[in-house]
Each structure stands twice: as structure tokens, then as C-alpha cells.
């Protein structure tokens, strides 16, 4: 026994030692690369959170869409819808007078910097390509509600350099405020003007902060998120609840859904359809 070991040691020349050392070095060097390949092909997700799930009561759809029945939109409905959205998402109202005690020396607001998620627009601005010399008189005074169209081919998503704006698999175009660097490319890209930039801290102009939704910091862009946080809790969007049936939100891919039934029975148009953005917001005329 002892003898054989001795002979083995003798046999293992410098040459064979170097061979073994070389192979070991290659193996050690290749291990991280092999591991990386294994992870990439083994379905390693970006958010390694196997324990994270949606809430049981969450409303889901293949592709969320909105139908606005313009015949049911009155000035009162517009007011309550805009107010409901404002309250749900802590959107500043630049007509609101800041509380002097809480926010002393607030500089005056600039209306051109207002934040808009859903707002009133006139026909010729909502549908500029459809303007007509002999347009029915009633359309000229009718209030239209416009918001983010959650486009199928959203130009804002393509423009965003940080992937702060992205499209969820269920069709909602949403923002990760944390990632927004405030470059405003998305605002230039959006043909509907649905995005607003926070030029200043909004807090002084929020009447009552809703603790269910964050406020935004200066230098961040924001827009309608189709109440993703409410859908996740099984609630309808705030505008739908406040609209007295004028706004319906549902699954565009489901032929039996309320939105599809409405679209089937009525003539509906979309904003700036010719641009090819495929808006998900329909207007029943």
C-alpha cells in the first residue's frame, strides 16, 4: 500500500501536475458562465418573488378598454368625474388656495402647468381631424371627457428611455413613478396631450390628501392609470363610479363584456384613429 502511493507520487511528474492544474483553472473560470446560462435558460424571472400574487378580489381583463357615452355626459357629470379622479389620485387643483399655516410662502400657481388625468374638452379639440364647416350645432357646445387612451401601440411607451412608462399585459399603459427621470419625451410623443409634468411640489394645492395613493415629487410625469390600484382591489375606476353610467370600463377582448355589447349596438369613434395608435377609449356618438 505504502509502496504504491510512493510510486504514484513519483509517477506524477511536473507535466501531469500542470495538466491537472490547468483543467482545474478552466473549470473554476467557467463555473460562473455555466451558472449564468443555467439561470437564463431555467426561467429565472426578473422579480424572483414566487410568493407574490394578485389579490383574490382583483378585477382582471385581457385588454382593458373604456367606452364613454357622450350622450350621457353633462356638465354635472364632468364635474363629478373630474373631482372623483382628483380625489382618488391626489391631483393638484391650481385654483385651490394653499393653507398659509401648513405651506407658508407658496408661490402663485401657473395654470399652464396644471396636472390633467381626465378633463373636459370641446369637440374640435378632442377630434380635430373631424372638424366640419357644417358640423351639427350641438357638438360645438357638448362637453367631451378625454383622458389617456391606453393605446395598443402607445407612442409614449416607445419614447420612454427608462421604461418608466410601459404597457401591462392587460393593456393598461402605466407609469412607474420611481423610474421617471422627467425627460418628457413621452409628453412629446403622446398625440393626445394626456400627460402632465410636475413643475412643482403639488402638496399645497391638494385639498385633502388621499392616503390610499401617493403624491408625486417634482420632476415626474404623470397620467391616467385606469385606476390600476382600484382594479387590483376589485373596485371599478373612480371615474366610472362617478359618471352615472356614462363611462364603462371592461374587457375589449371579451365579446360578452359590457363594453363590447355597447360597441356592438352603437356607433363609436376613437380619437385620432388615423395615427395608428389604436386607442382603447371609445366615444359613443
Amino acid at each position: 500500500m505504502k509502496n504504491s502511493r510512493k510510486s504514484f507520487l513519483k509517477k506524477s511528474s511536473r507535466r501531469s501536475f500542470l495538466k491537472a492544474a490547468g483543467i482545474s483553472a478552466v473549470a473554476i473560470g467557467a463555473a460562473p458562465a455555466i451558472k449564468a446560462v443555467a439561470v437564463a435558460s431555467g426561467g429565472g424571472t426578473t422579480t424572483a418573488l414566487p410568493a407574490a400574487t394578485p389579490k383574490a378580489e382583483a378585477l382582471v381583463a385581457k385588454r382593458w378598454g373604456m367606452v364613454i357615452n357622450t350622450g350621457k355626459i353633462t356638465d354635472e357629470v364632468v364635474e363629478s368625474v373630474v373631482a372623483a379622479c382628483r380625489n382618488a389620485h391626489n391631483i393638484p387643483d391650481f385654483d385651490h388656495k394653499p393653507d398659509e399655516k401648513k405651506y407658508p410662502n407658496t408661490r402663485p400657481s401657473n395654470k399652464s402647468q396644471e396636472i390633467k388625468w381626465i378633463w373636459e374638452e370641446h369637440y374640435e379639440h378632442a377630434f380635430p381631424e373631424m372638424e366640419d364647416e357644417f358640423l351639427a350645432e350641438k357638438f360645438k357646445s357638448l362637453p367631451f371627457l378625454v383622458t389617456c387612451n391606453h393605446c395598443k401601440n402607445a407612442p409614449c411607451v416607445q419614447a420612454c428611455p427608462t421604461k418608466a412608462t410601459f404597457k401591462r399585459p392587460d393593456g393598461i399603459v402605466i407609469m412607474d413613478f420611481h423610474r421617471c427621470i422627467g425627460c418628457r419625451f413621452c409628453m412629446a410623443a403622446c398625440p393626445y396631450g394626456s400627460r402632465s409634468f410636475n413643475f412643482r411640489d403639488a402638496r399645497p394645492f391638494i385639498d385633502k390628501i388621499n392616503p390610499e395613493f401617493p403624491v408625486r415629487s417634482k420632476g415626474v410625469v404623470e397620467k391616467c392609470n385606469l385606476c390600476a390600484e382600484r382594479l387590483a382591489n376589485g373596485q371599478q375606476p373612480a371615474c366610472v363610479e362617478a359618471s352615472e353610467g356614462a363611462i364603462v370600463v371592461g374587457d375589449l377582448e371579451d365579446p360578452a363584456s359590457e363594453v363590447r355589447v355597447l360597441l356592438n349596438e352603437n356607433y363609436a369613434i376613437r380619437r385620432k384613429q388615423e395615427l395608428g395608435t389604436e386607442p382603447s377609449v371609445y366615444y359613443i356618438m
Partner: protein
Amino acid sequence: MSKNAIIAGLVVFVAAALFPFWFNIGGTNAAPEVELSAKAKAAKKCVLDKYDMRANHMTILNDWRTSVVRDSNRMYKSTNGKEFGMSLSTGENSCLGCHTDKAKFCDKCHTYASVAPYCWECHTDPKEVTQ
């Protein structure tokens, strides 16, 4: 003669080099004690173990954000079997839902460690808001 000068110089050098140590003797800058709210004490289990939480809470918050915003997954089942709402400040089973006092739960240690996370630029302390 030069020996004395060298020793005196060394004494001064050592004293200067050890300045941070002797200056802080006396415990004026003791690490803050964690004060759990009654609700958190009663719950006993948090998302992670105490030490893991202390070291990695920022990572888990980051992961939660991605999960909530990108994948719309808002419920987190911890490895210890407890469920949590993946939110900093909204709902009963969020961070501040249990650790009700932000000043004691967040600010105390952050101030001590001289870190200034920008969470509260946007997120709101429900207590502060409803006041």
C-alpha cells in the same frame, strides 16, 4: 533629548489617530433602540427575520415595488407563512399598517445612520395625512 521629542510626538499622533474613539466614549451616540408598536409586538412575525429585515428591507421594498407596478401582484406570502399587502403605507397589512409610528419605525434609525431615502417625497404617512 530626541527620544523625548519622539515619544511626545507619538503620544500626540496616537491621540489624534484615535480621536473618533475617545471622542465618542460616553455613549452620547448610542444606536437607537427599536421600539415596536403594540400591534407589531402582537403580530410577532414580520416579513423577514429581525436581522434579515434590518439588513435587507430596502431590497425587499424595491422588489415589492416592481412586483406591484409591473406584475400587479400585491399580496406577499412570506416564507414564514404570513401574508402581507405589498405596500409601504396603504392598508392594514402594509408596513405602516402594523408599524404605526413612522417616526419611531423609519426615521429614528435613518436619522441615526444619516441616510435620507426619498420614499416620503411621494408616499404619505396615513397618520400625518388624516390629521
